[in-house]
């Protein structure tokens, strides 16, 4: 069975696409899947840094597209899990070095070799984004619960619909439950109500992410933090498991909150 190419994108920059790509790739590999993560953010690469593989880059995506090397040669194996590979972006080139047709071809090869290929898209609606979604079977949109990020996510969903890549599914990142409770932040319900697409998961704000990013150790490798668990749940939902959605921000009474504390978090 050919694998699935999933592009992770957003309208607004800095909402967590790279973090999500690295961690979902790692989590899927931890569950025994063969996974490639692809950095399509050419010229601004950082998936390699977040994954701690920067020092092992020899070839990159542009080399593959230009025929300088074969796909296999450019893939860097992540030794911390069984079957996880990174296809890095070129640092010194710009996004015009790759066309949507090139990406479709690369994705075709990845589909043959892997169960999942996750593509980390640059922010925005320009060529880099067009490249990143060209070969995708599915699209995941990441947003934070902020009005401007949601507005831009809506715009991206419109573009994805126009390209008949489906409406996509949604990850809400950096949710701060206590701020939502105080009414200072959009809640999950508010975001889903506007975007009206399938919710794949909610990742809370978690300091451990910043630490793990700086260390080049995706947080799911450490396991226990709330964000790591949320990311692992998302990976399992992608694999088709039915994991109930934990709603950290729901207005709840004292007793249900107590009940949740007893049950444990997401």
């Amino acid at each position, binding site marked *: 069975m050919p694998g699935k190419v999933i592009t992770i994108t957003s309208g607004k920059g800095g909402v967590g696409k790279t973090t999500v790509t690295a961690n979902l790739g790692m989590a899927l590999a931890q569950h025994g899947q063969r996974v490639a993560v692809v950095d399509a953010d050419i010229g601004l690469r950082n998936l390699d840094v977040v994954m701690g593989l920067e020092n092992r880059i020899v070839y990159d995506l542009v080399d593959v597209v230009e025929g300088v090397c074969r796909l296999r040669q450019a893939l860097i194996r992540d030794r911390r899990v069984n079957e996880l590979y990174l296809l890095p972006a070129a640092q010194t080139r710009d996004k015009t070095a790759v066309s949507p047709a090139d990406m479709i071809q690369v994705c075709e090869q990845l589909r043959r070799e892997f169960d999942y290929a996750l593509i980390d898209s640059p922010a925005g609606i320009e060529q880099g984004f067009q490249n990143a979604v060209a070969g995708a079977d599915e699209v995941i949109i990441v947003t934070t619960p902020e009005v401007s990020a949601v*507005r*831009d996510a*809506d*715009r991206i*969903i*419109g573009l994805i*619909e126009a390209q008949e890549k489906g409406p996509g599914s949604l990850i809400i990142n950096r949710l701060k439950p206590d701020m939502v409770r105080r009414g200072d932040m959009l809640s999950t319900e508010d975001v889903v109500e*506007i975007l*009206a697409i399938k919710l794949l998961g909610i990742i809370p704000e978690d300091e451990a992410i910043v630490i793990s990013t700086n260390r080049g150790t995706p947080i799911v490798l450490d396991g226990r933090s709330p964000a790591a668990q949320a990311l692992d749940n998302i990976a399992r939902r992608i694999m088709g498991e039915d994991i109930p959605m934990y709603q950290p921000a729901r207005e709840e009474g004292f007793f249900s909150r107590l009940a949740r504390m007893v049950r444990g978090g997401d």
Partner: protein
Amino acid sequence: MADGVKIKGTRDGLLVSLGAGDLPLLLADLRAQLNRSPGFFQGGKVALAVGSRPMTRADLQQICDVLGELGITIWAVISQSPMTRAAARELGLASASPPEEAPSDLEAGQEPAVIVRRTLRSGQSVRYPGHVVVIGDVNPGAEIVAGGDIIVWGKLRGTVHAGAMGDDSAVVCALQLQPMQLRISGNIARSPESNRTKQKARPEVARVRGAEIVAEPWEP
């Protein structure tokens, strides 16, 4: 001026057609029509139909200039005259001879309607000389400009302008009326802050009463 300048909405967008008459008169007529509702045309793209009139590059350039005053660009010139089509190509405009059968176009005064069967998302817009009906939501950041009424069978949270060519009797209705900004003809209403918070959804209709836009329960 029976045969002067006509501006119509077609399925492919706005169509400006020039009838018989002296070019300077037609240009004056075009400018007058555009200035009657500048907001509607601003920044738009139109197709230009000039029948069999032979036109030079300079003639076409004059039309481009008048349209350009409102930021309107021509995306295609439709003409039976090979000379006109050649002139258009020289200006870098697409050109075509008219289709055999007349397109099912609609005149601004005739109150046709377009139905949009999807949610309009941020950055998407619909401009139409007649009525606009949306079956879906109009999200914040989306925009509708209509010559006639705007009816939204869903949540209206974007920006809408009904009666954009100067029709004060136009209305806007929605199952949930919470627009970012709502205009009818030359009147503007902004969403009061309190409206942003969730309230019980009930259908409302906005119309002009006196010199103000008011929202009332939509009770057919």
